[in-house]
Structure formats: structure tokens, C-alpha cells
């Protein structure tokens, strides 16, 4: 079972919020003594997802949590937006798939960088992406 220990909610409406949010994630990760490499992976994944949120859904809301499972501590991030949603998630998760002119690495890359990745989306309603990175993951 995963237990939530502490929690913060960050609203994302503009580009500059990204840096603030990344710093907030860093504070959380440092608090549970996550090593530098895992911190970097987590924040890079988070950066991809927050960019998607801004770019495709005009922003949204992110929950940052310290979670624990047994003896393991980690950070859980939930990205929630009310954008157009993703009609074909399988396709969106493919390396190199992008509707824009970017690299199409955000979703699949973020998945590789964390221990737990789930995405739920409904056309016209929005998208929720949840990731977890364990301290020793």
C-alpha cells in the first residue's frame, strides 16, 4: 500500500511557473534524501510533463507528494489538466510521435525515467498523468 505523507499543490498557468515547480520538486526530493541522479531523472520527467500540460492544455494543476511503501520513500507527482485530452494514448506514448514539430520524447522518455507511470485521458475532458520515483528506484 502506498501512503501519502505530505503534500503540496502547484498551479501552472505560464512558462515561468515551470522553474518554480521544478524547484519545489527538488525541495521535496531532497527532503527524503533522494540521490542526485534519481532527482535529475525525476525533475527531467516532471519537466517534460509540465511542458506538455502548458503546451497542449494551457496549463493545469500538479500535486507533489512524499509517499511511502513499506520501507521505501518516494515522490509522487500528479499532473492534471482540462485540455483536449489524448485520443490515442498508445500512439502518443511512441518514441518520436508528436503533433507539433518537437521530438515526441516527452511521454515515453518520462516513463523510462521514473518507476511508475500511468496516464488517463478522455477526449474533450483532459488528461491525468501520475508518476512515482522511489528514493532507491
Amino acid at each position, binding site marked *: 500500500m502506498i501512503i501519502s505523507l505530505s503534500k503540496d499543490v502547484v498551479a501552472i498557468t505560464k*512558462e*515561468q511557473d*515551470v*522553474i518554480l515547480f*521544478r524547484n519545489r520538486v527538488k525541495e521535496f526530493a531532497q527532503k527524503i534524501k533522494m540521490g*542526485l*541522479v534519481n*532527482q*535529475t*531523472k525525476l*525533475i*527531467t520527467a516532471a*519537466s*517534460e510533463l509540465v*511542458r506538455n500540460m502548458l503546451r497542449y492544455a494551457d496549463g493545469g494543476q500538479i500535486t507533489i507528494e512524499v509517499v511511502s511503501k513499506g520501507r521505501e520513500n518516494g515522490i509522487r507527482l500528479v499532473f492534471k489538466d482540462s485540455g483536449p485530452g489524448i485520443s490515442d494514448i498508445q500512439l502518443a506514448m511512441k*518514441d518520436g510521435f508528436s503533433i507539433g514539430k*518537437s*521530438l515526441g*520524447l*516527452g511521454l*515515453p*522518455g518520462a516513463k*523510462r*525515467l521514473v518507476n511508475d507511470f500511468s496516464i488517463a485521458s478522455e477526449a474533450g475532458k483532459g488528461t491525468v498523468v501520475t508518476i512515482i520515483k522511489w528514493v532507491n528506484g
Partner: protein
Amino acid sequence: MDKIPILRMGAFLLVTIQVDLYDRLALNLESDLVQMVSKTDAKGVLIDISAVSIVDSFMGRIIGNIANMSRILDAETVVVGMQPAVAITLVELGLPLKGVHTALDVEKGMNLLRSKMQVLEEEEEDLNDEDDNIPV
């Protein structure tokens, strides 16, 4: 609005990225650099990212674009001082920095660029020699 300074060092341009860039700043840097390369006829671009803690696919694309456009203008790009954690993360993200050289620090980066220029000059000389040898 803040701007990232571009320093001219002989035939090379040096950019030191001190802050975690937000998108607008990164895009400005891309166009400023390409303009500078063409204006100064620089032969190399050094991008010092030793103070950068996160390179995501957006930043990676900007660096790749700078390298591509510089190459068209005859200049090579070297990324300098990438933190080990950033390098490891980039591999897992799946982002190959194509056409971008890397070096540990600015000095090593400059040496790399110089050696590339020498190779080019020698190749040109070789070509000229061959011209001389063409029988009339």
C-alpha cells in the same frame, strides 16, 4: 527581458548558461547565436552547461538546432561541462545529441575545436596539392 550573453573568443563563440532556461529565453538564445555565427564568421560554438541541472527534450532540441544551423554556416558546436547526472538522464530520456561534440571543460572544448579546424585546413591543403599534380 534577460538575455544570455554571447562572448567572442577569437574564432569561437562562448555561451555560458547560468540559469535554468525558460522557453522564451532558450529560443532567443538559439536565434541570437545563429545570427552571431553568421555575422562574425565564427568557426566554433562552445555552450557551457556546467551550471545547468536539467536538460529536457526541449533544451536538447535547442542545442541540436544550434549545432545544425551552425554546421550549415561552417561552425562546429561543443557542449561543455555536462553534469554526469544530466548525461545519464539524457540517455534514458532517449535523446541523442546528434552532431554535438562534448568536452569536460571550456579549455578542452577549445582544444577540440582547434584540432577540428586544423584537420579541415590540412584537408584543404591536400586538395590543393592534388590540383597541382593534375597533368597538363
